[in-house]
């Protein structure tokens, strides 16, 4: 990690306005650069956090949260001769729906009342293209492919305080996720331990933070000059500045010395004995989960995004073992460990955290001839946290949209004769999270979810998984 000298940043804050090179950007530059200190002092310890885990490829919801209450699912010959999971093999939630056995580690979370299971979530006019569906899930504006701006970016950008921090959000992914694209540049990294240019004086000078160097020198100076008129110049320069600011904010966050608490583990394929985790996908996923937990514990980062890919199982999906089950195991292990780690030692971090899991669409209710499933419609989500309406709280089971009052027999084929029909629009989930978890005023929801207040219909009703 580069030796950023906090004194220099303070100095920069005091003199930035005097520097011609910085003048046009001085307010942003100064604030976002300084904000680790500014921000920590200005918010209370109850800041709400969000980790969004995006299951890329279209997760097969029917073999994730299994609707045994829909007898059409149980008609194995007709729907899923090879992929069918029997009630005795799965983990019952509410007498109607059950978890895939590879989600067993979620039981600990569920039984504590910390897990909500949401089913039949989708959007109207599903395109069944990965590309466009992922875009809509992330930009919050179905049908608008041109909007390269994420709903979480708008949340951060609209918040007067969070928009000033260089690390209020983090896209912990190999690419900047669309959910974080937008006017506010949000840090993005694949591996926290690689998010550094080293500790040498040469690196510090390169960035513009040499111990005795002029403020506004080095690359920070170059990136901070007035953008030119070409398409990407402003955003490119802002990326450079946020890079500098986030490197500074993360200088003391060392993933190599991090010790998980409360029995949490973030397995590594080279040492784990669990066959499901002996692969590169698991390594990257757990590393990123660990980074998110560490950011929650050690920084003021509020909103984090993580991907888990590999759900596009057109063939060889796997029933109890295999591609899809292996990924479910990773997911359950991750959520279990996040909860353990954030609640260990009486910490209230878990009470302030929401882990949200979604996928661009689910899959065909019938399996195909290749032991796989094709692109479908409505799917399942998980929402976990210390303050959700889970099992036993408010007299609910923690299962939403998967019981006899919300699900008629045959619903798994109600859409086009091949897909599970939707009951709730994904934006209703977003809106409930924004309003009840992150504290966005109802009147401000339109600025995060375009056109929200004008949407009418029961699919936009809150499910009330949050108090």
């Amino acid at each position, binding site marked *: 990690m580069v030796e950023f000298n906090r004194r220099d940043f303070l100095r920069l804050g005091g003199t930035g306005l005097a520097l*011609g*090179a910085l003048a046009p950007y001085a307010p942003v530059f100064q604030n976002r650069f300084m904000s680790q200190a500014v921000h920590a002092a200005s918010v209370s310890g109850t800041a709400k956090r969000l980790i969004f885990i995006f299951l*890329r490829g279209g997760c097969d919801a029917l073999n994730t949260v299994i609707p045994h209450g829909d007898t059409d699912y149980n008609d194995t010959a007709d729907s899923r001769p090879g992929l069918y999971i029997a009630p005795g093999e799965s983990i019952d939630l509410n007498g109607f729906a059950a978890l895939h056995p590879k989600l067993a580690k979620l039981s600990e979370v569920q039984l504590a009342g910390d897990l909500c299971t949401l089913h039949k979530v989708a959007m109207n006019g599903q*395109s*069944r*293209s*990965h*590309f*466009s569906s992922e875009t809509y899930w992330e930009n919050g504006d179905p049908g608008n*492919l041109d909007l*390269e701006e994420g709903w979480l970016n708008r949340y951060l950008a609209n918040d007067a305080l969070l928009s000033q921090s260089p690390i209020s959000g983090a*896209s912990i992914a*190999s*690419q*900047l996720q669309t959910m974080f694209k937008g006017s506010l*540049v949000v*840090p993005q*990294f*694949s591996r926290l331990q*690689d*998010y550094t*240019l*080293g500790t040498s*004086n040469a*690196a510090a*000078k*390169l960035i513009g933070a*040499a111990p*005795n*160097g*002029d403020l506004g*020198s*080095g*690359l920070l*100076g*170059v*990136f901070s*000059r007035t953008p*030119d008129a*070409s*398409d*990407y*110049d402003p*955003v*490119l*320069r802002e*990326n*450079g500045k*946020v*890079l500098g600011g986030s490197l500074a904010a993360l200088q003391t966050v060392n993933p190599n010395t991090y010790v998980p608490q409360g029995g949490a583990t973030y397995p590594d394929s080279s040492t784990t004995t669990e066959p499901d985790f002996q692969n590169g996908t698991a390594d990257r996923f757990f590393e990123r989960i660990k980074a998110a937990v560490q950011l929650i514990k050690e920084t003021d980062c509020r909103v984090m995004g993580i991907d888990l*890919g*590999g759900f596009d199982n*057109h*063939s060889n999906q796997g029933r109890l073992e295999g591609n899809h089950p292996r990924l479910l195991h990773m997911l359950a292990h991750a959520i279990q460990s996040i909860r353990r780690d954030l609640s260990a030692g009486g910490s209230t971090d878990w009470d302030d955290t929401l882990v949200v899991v979604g996928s661009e669409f689910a899959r065909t209710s019938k399996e*195909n*001839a*290749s032991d*796989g499933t*094709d692109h479908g419609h409505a799917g399942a989500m998980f929402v976990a946290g210390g303050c959700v309406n889970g099992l036993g709280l408010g007299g609910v089971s923690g299962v939403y949209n998967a019981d006899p009052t919300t699900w008629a027999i045959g619903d798994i084929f109600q859409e*086009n004769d091949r897909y599970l029909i939707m009951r709730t629009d994904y934006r209703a989930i977003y809106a409930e999270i924004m309003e009840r978890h992150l504290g966005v005023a109802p009147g401000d929801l339109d600025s995060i979810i375009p056109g929200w207040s004008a949407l009418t219909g029961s699919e936009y009703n809150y499910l009330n998984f949050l108090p």
Partner: protein
Amino acid sequence: MIGSRSLCVSSWRGRLPAVLLASALLTLPAVLLTQPAQGQTSQNTGQTPVTQGPIAVPLNDPFIRGDANVDLGVDIADALRVLNFLFPQPPDVVTLPCEDAADANNDESINVADAVYILSYLFSGGAEPPAPFPACGDDLDIIGPVAPALTCASYPACFNDTDPELVGHVLRRVAFGPTRALRDHVTSVGVAAYIDEQLSDAVDDLSNTRLNNLLGDLNYTSNLSDLQESNIARALFSNQQLRQQMTDFWENHFNTYYWSVRGYFRGLPGPVYTSSESSALTVSLEEIENSTLRSLGFSDFRDLVIASATGVPMLIYLDSHLNIAAEPNENYARELLELHTMGVDNGYTQDDIEELSRCLTGWTLCKKAPGTETDPHAPCLPADDATGIWAFHFDPATHDYDAKTLFEGTGYQLDIPARPALSPDGILDGFEVIDWLTQDSSQTAEFISTKLIKKFVSDTPPPSLVAACIATWLTTDGDIQAVLDVILHSDEFLFDHRWNLIETPYEYCVANARAFDEGSLPPGDDEALGIRIRSAMSLTNNRLFEWGTPDGYPSFGLDQLGTSKVLERIDYNMRIFDGFSSDPQFDLVAHLNAAGVLVFDAASIVSFFLDSLYPNNYTAEDEQLALDFINTNELGNPAFLNWLAPDFPDRVHAFGVFVSSFPQSMKQ
């Protein structure tokens, strides 16, 4: 100048006249067709030539007479441009950017005679247009003899053919960035000639010892890393830069995933292949895909799609081999429409995906006897037959022979007839759909043209250029060379959109190495450079054949950004210019010496780097920051650069890292 356009002129003469002449004749009033073309040359305004002094007129752009559409060449399209200007088909509005250029017979008026003059010159042995022709030049009429009535408002192509900024721009996009030698070459021949040289394969790598030595050291038909590095090597050193650009473009467009393909072979019961055999086999098949896409880089789009569809990696990757009549697997059909041809949600429905899946049933793979591997109807050998070669196979037993209807109820409904059961003609279902998709579908023409324009010109493609590409596509049945020709000679590409694309990490790494290669990379370090770039690609997830989803790795605009994307680029610069022992060791002092830079003068070093990296695209502020950087030590204390001091090389290398990490470096 016209000589350098020989490719375009000759190929367009050969390819287009039948179609375009027909449309020209439709536009031309019948009476004019009977007039002898020769007679037009002497027809003018009837004014008496007068000798007079210079006439005060606005200074006009230089131009080429006859080149009405200002694309640096005189061909039939210019005659059409004049005719379409004179007789527009509403609602079209046709303009002449440079009236003087359209005035082919130099009579200072635009009329049908100009079009006839051009046609006569091109096809009937008529006289060539008066000067300026065939090279760019000024309109001599400005100083007489005929009072100029016309102007040339815009002919940027002539103006800047060897302008350093234009040369740099073209080399950042057509090539993988400038080298000094290449910049000198293009500066001498002009960018139009360079583009044609690249598009026509006028250069090759037969005597490119540097590239061939490097490729010779790589086992790229059996080792994945070596296959990846072989592509990096070509990007770095091949003379056929545009061909490698297109190879990468098509590889990404028709992405296949090495690990899926390898998993298929590894999983064959027996097992047939050990782990290492599965790897080597898969690399050999991906290499066939790679070299096929390279050889087809400028070909008909139909050939590219068929090569991809019948390539062994794709047959496995998108489950074609599992797509059978009893239960179709729609994976490949969906991506063929969404990603490879029409574009997402662009003129097809879920029903069409299902119908196309049925058309493609029976398209599978198996081992074939050597010599029969190109025949999809040749019998299969068992998977464990040691002599067999994995190849495309059509299996009548799993093909759906019933009739299919695609795009039902649209203006482009496709009816695929039922065929006799088990007939080998079942394979034609798929070919018929692919023919339509690749040659006739305006959606495909639009989608692929737009994607090419996004690669070369702008993430917000100019509608005029998209329209020109679609028109070319539809008249040439999807000839990629013709479409590229339109794009790369367009004003939109050459002049209107500079520094407005974000380089992919791959382009970035290659370009920065090329920029400093001259005289600075010791012989023997080429392989280390390839390894370093491959390893940078693994950070950014851009390694060839290792992107897991069929959309290919992100290659446009904001997808290239992200704070760690900036950091990884800087980190790469640190490694190649100031790196560790295992990295390539660029000697930037040698680079300065080779370029004849006055190394005792810090300002000269600064401006040399800035001018060669960012011609006309840096500010005085940038320059001052660069000077400050080079004139301070590692602690940031002022310390003037001293070319005799021991820290001079370190200082220069640290400066190299700094200056090559400017925001400009991440753009094209």
